[in-house]
């Protein structure tokens, strides 16, 4: 990487963060928003600093859930898409069930999940995975169903077997769609983990935010939110880079 390039990749999130802070400050200053609804960035950064240990501790937990959720969700989403793409029966029957999982609000699922999985980390991860896997599955599936006809004709004349056609042609051809889904999933992963924490947690940014919001400090909530936002941005940029590389490799 050249100097200018690495400078660029440092500047980019900085510029974005600056813009966000500016919008935020402008909102607070000119839109006459009371500080119990949206505290100014100065106040929040103050809280961020004074509660840094608390926030850092909870952030680590959430970051861990995000990574686990993203990896598991991507795997699960990828496998789901592959399955749906090969079996018309699965498309017919299982796809609607998957669509359904996206229609269920947390509070309907939470008691079920805790009934089965208890209050450990697994119910949280499952909830996060449930949110993350769908964009990957859906986009990848769309890509798998749109393989250019010429290649499929070729594979047909070659008497390729369906699994290998999937693996050698449809999958590589669907990489841009997969990447597109992954990019989306990366944005949803942090909020997915936070929602997972609402299933019942005593740790993590989601817990901290709900707690702070409920009956305590808005400043703390926004400080936690700020960290969550930063996490989201970093993940978005990081996964974006991986996706670009992936697409370049598969042209």
């Amino acid at each position, binding site marked *: 990487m050249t100097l200018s390039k690495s400078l660029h990749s440092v500047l980019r999130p900085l510029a974005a963060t600056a813009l966000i802070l500016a919008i935020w400050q402008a909102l607070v200053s000119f839109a006459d928003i009371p500080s119990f609804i949206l505290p100014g960035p100065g106040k929040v950064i103050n809280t961020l600093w004074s509660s840094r240990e608390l926030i850092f501790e909870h952030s680590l937990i959430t970051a861990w859930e995000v990574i686990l959720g993203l990896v598991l969700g991507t795997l699960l989403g990828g496998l789901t898409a592959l399955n749906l793409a090969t079996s018309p029966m699965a498309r017919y029957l299982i796809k609607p069930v998957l669509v359904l999982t996206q229609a269920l609000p947390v509070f309907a699922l*939470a008691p079920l999940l805790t009934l089965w999985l208890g209050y450990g980390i697994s119910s949280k991860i499952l909830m996060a995975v449930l949110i993350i896997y769908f964009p990957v599955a859906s986009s990848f599936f769309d890509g798998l169903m749109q393989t250019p006809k010429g290649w499929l004709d070729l594979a047909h004349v070659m008497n390729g077997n369906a699994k290998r056609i999937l693996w050698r042609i449809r999958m590589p051809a669907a990489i841009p769609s997969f990447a597109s889904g992954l990019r989306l999933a990366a944005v949803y992963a942090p909020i997915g983990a936070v929602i997972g924490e609402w*299933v019942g947690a005593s740790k993590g940014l989601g817990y901290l935010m709900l707690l702070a919001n409920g009956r305590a400090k808005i400043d703390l909530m926004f400080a936690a939110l700020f960290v969550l936002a930063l996490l989201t941005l970093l993940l978005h940029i990081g996964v974006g880079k991986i996706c670009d590389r992936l697409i370049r490799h598969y042209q």
Partner: protein
Amino acid sequence: ADKLSLILDWFVNPDHGPIIVAQEKGYFKEQGLEVEVIAPADPADPPKLAAAGKADLAVSYQPQLHLQVAEGLPLKRVGTLVGTPLNCLLVLEDGPIKKISDLKGKKVGFSVAGVEEAVLGTMLASDGLKMTDVEMVNVNWSLSPSLMSKQVDAVIGAFRNFELNQMEIEGIAGRCFYPEAQGIPSYDELIYVANPEKMDADKIKRFLAATEKATQFIVNYPEESWKIFSGTSKELQDELNAKAWVDTWPRFTLSPAALDHGRYARYEDFLLKSGLTKKILPVSDLAIDLGAAK
């Protein structure tokens, strides 16, 4: 030691003083108990999970208990944590609402919880208004902000030991109309519930004994208790919790195991009149005095 799991109604806050203090002072251990305390994010979950046998005990609310039992949940109140109502109708101190009848034609916010419409209806009736005289708005996650930003003129469902302090810290004073002063029968805000078929009465008795001891300690040494309580977690160490503690500790029930039959019968009556339930259940279906039962 015997294991006992307890699901709180919400994240740990000063309402849970006796439980945390008993834990910290080792009173549970004295009773041969090892108590696991779990905090959910949604207050509607704990009774369900206790009824399902996922926990030995859950912290819940008396008004909710009546509805849940009426809907067939296998639950009974086995002990009391806070023996007075905390709920109140909150307005701005220097706002236009001086008495309840000033609410005519105004907006009242509520956080969907079940009984609050009935409570509000009765309170309005006590000053000659009907439910149709006000506009009800579900403000869900933001009771006091919606009031402070004047999105609504009053909110029902605020806790007098929290929202008042929160508003004070923001520099906007609030005022409470108390339900029990406006025709609502008094009730236990926070109670312990358990599945009557699955529960181990002996363990629960020991649990209640430990919290009773903790409550007495709190009443004797409120400031030291605050230090013990807030020392358990950094999240608790702030001005709001400190103020809330002062307003909360006097409300802890001194005899958690004791059952006031009349309270439950009166509230059951009130819910039937408000149309929220269809028939009167005997108190024995709702609550149990473990000390009286053998």
